[in-house]
């Protein structure tokens, strides 16, 4: 594969992953602490690491 194709593949995989992360954060975002700029960071971390948060959320039920 060319570098462009690797970039394209990464985008194709990243878009649905981040969309799920946004949905997850919107639904379960009330768990996020902090306020102000730190809250923005926590939202971005939540979008990026939603599978980990999902597992931990399920395990604490």
């Amino acid at each position: 594969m060319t570098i462009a194709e690797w970039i394209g593949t990464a985008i194709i995989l990243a878009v649905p992953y981040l969309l799920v992360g946004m949905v997850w954060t919107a639904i379960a975002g009330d768990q996020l602490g902090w306020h102000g700029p730190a809250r923005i960071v926590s939202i971005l971390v939540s979008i990026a690491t939603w599978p980990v948060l999902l597992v931990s959320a399920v395990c604490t039920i």
Partner: protein
Amino acid sequence: MTLEDCRITVRRRTARWDPDESVTAADAMDFWSFAAGAANVIMQLARPGVGYGVVESKVDSGNLLKHPWKRARTTFQYLAVAIIGTAEDRAAFREAVNGAHRQVKSTPDSPVRYNAFDRDMQMWVAACLFVGLEDTYQLLRGEMTVEQSEQFYRSAWTLGTTLQVTEDQWPPTRADFDDYWATACGQIDIDDRVRGYLLDLLNLHMINPVLGLPFRPLLKFLTIGFLAPVFRHAMGVKWSDSKQWLFESLFLVVAFANRFLPVFIRQGGSYVLLADVRRRVRRERALV
């Protein structure tokens, strides 16, 4: 007739990223290439022997206007088999197509003599397919060098040899093909009956209007864009400099986006169709 009359002229096309790479016709199987499909049907049927062979055909199962989706599948499968298939795939498909072609011959009432096994007619159809692949490939990947053009051309001969066309029917070099094409285009003639059939195709009369209506303007634009002046004239359709600018701009954008698509997305459809051919052969189901 000059090449400017019988090939599309593209003034702005994407730059070539790999001028030293070797190429084959298999590289042209990106799904965008199907945008030239309807134009290719028009080119093929512009030769009266092919046009009347299709319009008068009694093989209903392969009739584009009666079974458009099936016909699309079998046509694209033919391309997949011819270009990326094995010798066994080609032999199986040849046998199936021969079965349909045996029923395609003119009657005393036909205005034109034709026979689907006519090797000259098959060579014309294969030449149209080659021209379509070369045009779309160069729009998507940039203009080939002389050496690449020769490799691409030689690798596309299976478009004809999968059926009854022999290797010595193909002009030996890519430059010789230009001569063949210019001469062959002198024999095109679309009369009212064949034009009516082709306009039905272009207006998507064969599919559900709910699905067809939104796509009709795009299909017409792409189809006329992929037709060389001699075919546009024969069809009686209009083209303009502004549409040509739009056509070239569209393919500059598509070519850029296409660079980022991995091969399994660009060409996955053709491999799925080829897998379906092999599955049908294994299960002894009809190919066409």
